């Protein structure tokens, strides 16, 4: 299976453990990632906060380049990237907007390629296929699946899963032989890109998320977003200090769990590069 790949800035920056995990896990599943050449930043939070036109133009450029390179499917592991790409797809249904964006980005934006997040990628590969490829069922894992904001919202842009009570990630995790818990912070925000600029908010929200997962019996969290991972993993020590409690929750990327179930090691998947590595 050959698929277009748009890593985004985080995965080539401080969240490159996520990319390591993806590459290891997907190659074991025979999925070839065709990184699109010359991809640029999607604009992240800064663009949509400060410049509406730019927030459509930057992801539009990436969509156009992917389509130009012949990718019918484009995998974006960061939900902010994938959501922006989907926003462009919706916007260019209006021919006037499509023309304007194409002129701005100097490439033909057709908006035809399918955009996939990590969960959708695994669904594409097939849960039955995943199940049969499992070598080591993850019996010691009781995971709280954390979706964050942008995998399921805004629903009229991403059209993915039930935005109030999602369960797609749980289905993938269950196929790996692990247990999941029902908990109350599946789609509550972690503070997103405010890690540096408004740390207080991030610590407060991360504290609620990590605590609630533990209270509902989880021994780890699973995420499919690099920002969520940073706020819950890298910042976990700060949360523990701020709120005076031990949490010790390992935060896995979904691809980590898939890789482990396929028999790959923690080192291969980059799990040893997380900040919280043991409960």
């Amino acid at each position, binding site marked *: 299976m050959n698929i277009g790949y748009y890593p985004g800035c985080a995965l080539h920056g401080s969240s490159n453990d996520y990319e390591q995990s993806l590459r290891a896990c997907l190659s074991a599943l025979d999925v070839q990632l065709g990184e699109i050449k010359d991809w640029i930043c999607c604009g992240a939070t*800064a663009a949509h*906060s400060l410049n509406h036109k730019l927030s459509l133009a930057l992801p539009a450029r990436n969509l156009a380049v992917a389509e130009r390179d012949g990718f019918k499917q484009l995998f974006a592991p960061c939900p902010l990237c994938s959501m922006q790409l989907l926003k462009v797809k919706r916007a260019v249904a209006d021919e006037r907007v499509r023309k304007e964006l194409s002129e701005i980005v100097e490439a033909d934006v057709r908006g035809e390629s399918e955009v996939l997040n990590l969960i959708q990628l695994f669904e594409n590969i097939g849960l039955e296929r995943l199940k049969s490829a499992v070598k080591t069922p993850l019996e010691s894992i009781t995971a709280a699946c954390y979706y964050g904001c942008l995998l399921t919202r805004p629903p009229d842009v991403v059209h993915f899963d039930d935005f109030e009570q999602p369960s797609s990630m749980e289905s993938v995790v269950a196929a790996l032989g692990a247990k999941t818990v029902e908990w109350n912070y599946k789609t*509550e925000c972690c503070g997103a890109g405010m890690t540096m600029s408004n740390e207080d908010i991030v610590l407060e929200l991360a504290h609620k998320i990590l605590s609630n997962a533990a209270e509902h019996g989880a021994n780890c969290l699973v995420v499919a977003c690099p920002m969520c991972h940073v706020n819950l993993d890298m910042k976990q020590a700060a949360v523990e200090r701020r709120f005076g409690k031990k949490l010790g929750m390992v935060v896995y990327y979904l691809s980590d769990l898939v890789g482990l179930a396929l028999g790959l090691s923690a080192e291969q998947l980059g799990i040893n590069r997380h900040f919280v590595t043991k409960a």
Partner: protein
Amino acid sequence: MENQAVGQVASERLRVHFPDHIQVADCYQCGKCTAGCPVAIHMDVAPNQVVRLAQLGEWEKALRSRAIWECVGCQTCSTRCPKEVDCAGVMDALREASLARGMAAHERLPVVSFQEIFLENIRRNGRLNELELIGRFKMDVLVHTGRILFLFKDAGLAPKLGKRKKLHLSSGKASDRGVVDRIFERCSNGRKR
């Protein structure tokens, strides 16, 4: 009466034009946005009140609020709004206008600087250069607030990141940065920091 007339003229000058899909008149102030907002308790003006200010044409108050910068963009408000008002989109538009009109208080809100520096960074590099971002951001906060300690905040993280091979002294750059610069230019309306 006179004051009101002057206020109205000044307010008209500040009027924010929302994208077509946003109809603030539709909002009937039910407060569901405020109810679901993860950071509403920290805001000086609650989310429903921000929309109310827009309805009343109180642009000065809206654009100078801290609330629009406390917003984390989680989209919960827009998703649950019974009148399908894109409240998150209202926040975006007010942020854009606030900065463009020089009404965002950088000294009170480091996040304003952060977003600006982020954009400059990707304009220059095509992709984000994290070290550069962190460095410039900390300097900016120092300049605006005089908080020297902020320079060293989280400094302990640097070696930890380095040990985990997450720090990149040179980051990958997009090969065609020219097109990025031109895209920015076309979207700029002549604005530059």
